[in-house]
């Protein structure tokens, strides 16, 4: 009986997570276009719904009703699977992110997180590198040269920046002593020097490296060589249309959302924040952690859009140089420096004894 309820709870949580991601994505599409428009002194979408807020929905409906054309030269099975492959890792990554404070129903503690893996961060890294399969397979199976080039670029880019993404997280793991995402959030509660919130953003180099690698990992501007439209038509999704293209589109935005949620959780303290537990009734205070989490996530999302509005696309050799000559050595040096410094603080200098 108890097991059955546990399964049910997990199921409900997964469904809720999916719903959150889909609605957030629709909002993101609108938000991105509005923010870009603001930065370019334009108005942006304002036709669908109040202030155009239903623009994402309108785009989605349009794409669903379009004819899904399958070109004759495609590798059919792989071609059909690739969009789903793009979506699944994007969904999976979000499942380990806690979006709010755990609460109790009866004597059962319910965490606002679909699953708390003890290897949460490793899981995130593993799944995020899975996402590149979708791009590569879509590019290859399209049987067309531009998608293929896009896919090849995606592979090289993912390999180059995956390493930096992982290495940037090592100091955080050393500092917090846990790989579990819920553990990370717990470690960031309280104050640092009784003054600042004890967020991991104090590991500033890690934060910078991670954000940079995350932008590259989600194939966003200025690292969007995978779909560089002035060189590769549409990149890997050139041959996709209708709903299958919508899946790729959705996956890209879900990736942005989950990457932002992860960054907010790992470096900005997740749902930690003032909740005014004593002074306000608990029927109100439960909303604050979720609010803080959403605010922090949106702040990172805003950075994604902001960077896109600002920087031009990198040239391919610049991308590789930044990845291999700057980011990976940079993260390595920072990681070794931090590990040594941390060990010296913890155990004393080796020459001291």
């Amino acid at each position, binding site marked *: 009986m108890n097991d059955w309820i546990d399964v049910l709870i997990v199921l409900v949580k997964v469904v809720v997570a999916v719903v959150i991601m889909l609605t957030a994505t629709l909002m993101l599409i609108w938000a991105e276009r509005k923010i870009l428009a*603001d*930065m*370019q*002194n*334009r*108005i942006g979408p*304002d036709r669908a719904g109040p202030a155009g807020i239903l623009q994402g929905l309108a785009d989605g409906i349009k794409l669903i009703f379009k004819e899904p054309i399958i070109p004759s030269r495609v590798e059919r099975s792989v071609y059909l699977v690739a969009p789903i492959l793009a979506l699944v890792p994007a969904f999976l990554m979000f499942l380990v992110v806690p979006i709010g404070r755990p609460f109790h129903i009866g004597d059962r503690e319910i965490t606002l997180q679909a699953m708390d893996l003890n290897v949460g961060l490793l899981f995130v890294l593993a799944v995020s590198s899975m996402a590149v399969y979708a791009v590569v397979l879509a590019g290859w199976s399209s049987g067309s040269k531009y998608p293929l080039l896009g896919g090849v670029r995606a592979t090289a880019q993912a390999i180059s920046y995956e390493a930096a993404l992982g290495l940037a997280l090592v100091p955080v793991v050393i500092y917090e002593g846990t790989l579990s995402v819920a553990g990370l959030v717990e470690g960031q509660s309280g104050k640092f020097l009784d003054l600042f919130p004890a967020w991991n953003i104090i590991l500033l180099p890690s934060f910078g490296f991670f954000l940079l690698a995350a932008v590259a990992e989600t194939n966003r501007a200025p690292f969007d060589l995978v779909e560089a439209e002035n060189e590769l038509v549409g990149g890997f999704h050139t041959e996709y249309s209708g709903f299958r293209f919508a899946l790729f589109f959705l996956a890209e935005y879900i990736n942005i959302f989950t990457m932002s949620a992860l960054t907010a959780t790992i470096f900005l303290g997740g749902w930690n924040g003032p909740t005014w537990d004593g002074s306000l009734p608990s029927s109100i205070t439960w909303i604050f952690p979720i609010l803080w989490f959403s605010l922090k996530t949106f702040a990172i999302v805003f950075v994604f859009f*902001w960077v896109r509005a*600002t920087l031009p696309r990198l040239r391919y050799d610049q991308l590789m140089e930044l990845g291999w000559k700057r980011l990976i050595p940079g993260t390595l040096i920072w990681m070794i420096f931090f590990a040594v410094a941390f060990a010296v603080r913890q155990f004393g200098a080796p020459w001291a004894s």
Partner: protein
Amino acid sequence: MGLVGIFAKGLAVTFRQMFRPRVTTSYPQEKRVKPQRFHGRHVLNRHADGMEKCIGCELCAGVCPARCIYVRGADNPVDEPVSPGERYGFIYEINMLRCIFCGLCVEACPTEAITMTQLFEMSVTDRHQALYTKDELLVGEDGTPNHPQPDGPLIDLNELTIADGWMRATSPAGRAAYEGIPGWTSSAGVGLRPAERGQSPAPAEDEPEEAD
């Protein structure tokens, strides 16, 4: 650190732009004020007494760089003349898909029969509809212009009466030789027009020729 500085500078620029006023407008709801000499679609004008101004000389067709005007002149019927003079524009067609709205036809016209207006909303669902004939081009007997599409949120038919800026810019103004001659178009009204910048002001003595 130079690179980070450059990044920060660029990000600051885009962030500042967010609070600047927008340069675009939501077009059908708010239309921009057009320049006075805007080149919109053409109209064929009439004299104040209802006679057509076009004399079928085909100068507009000759000067048209896009070759979009087709004119054929015919002799005026003796008992019921269409235009003052010998001939009138029997066929007058402008292919609006080919027209580049340069205004050379307006400049070439000796009688100021063809002028441009401010209306540019001329979308059609069929290519044949873009071929404007005298039905669409000629203004009515009372001077009201004609448009294939009705007045609506996009199409403001008043714009058809607003401006013939090009004609005003290139025609002589304030010259004594024109005294007493009715004004040419609906927007210019009747009588003499004040000189615009770049036009010759009224010479003191009564001399029709340009002093050059």
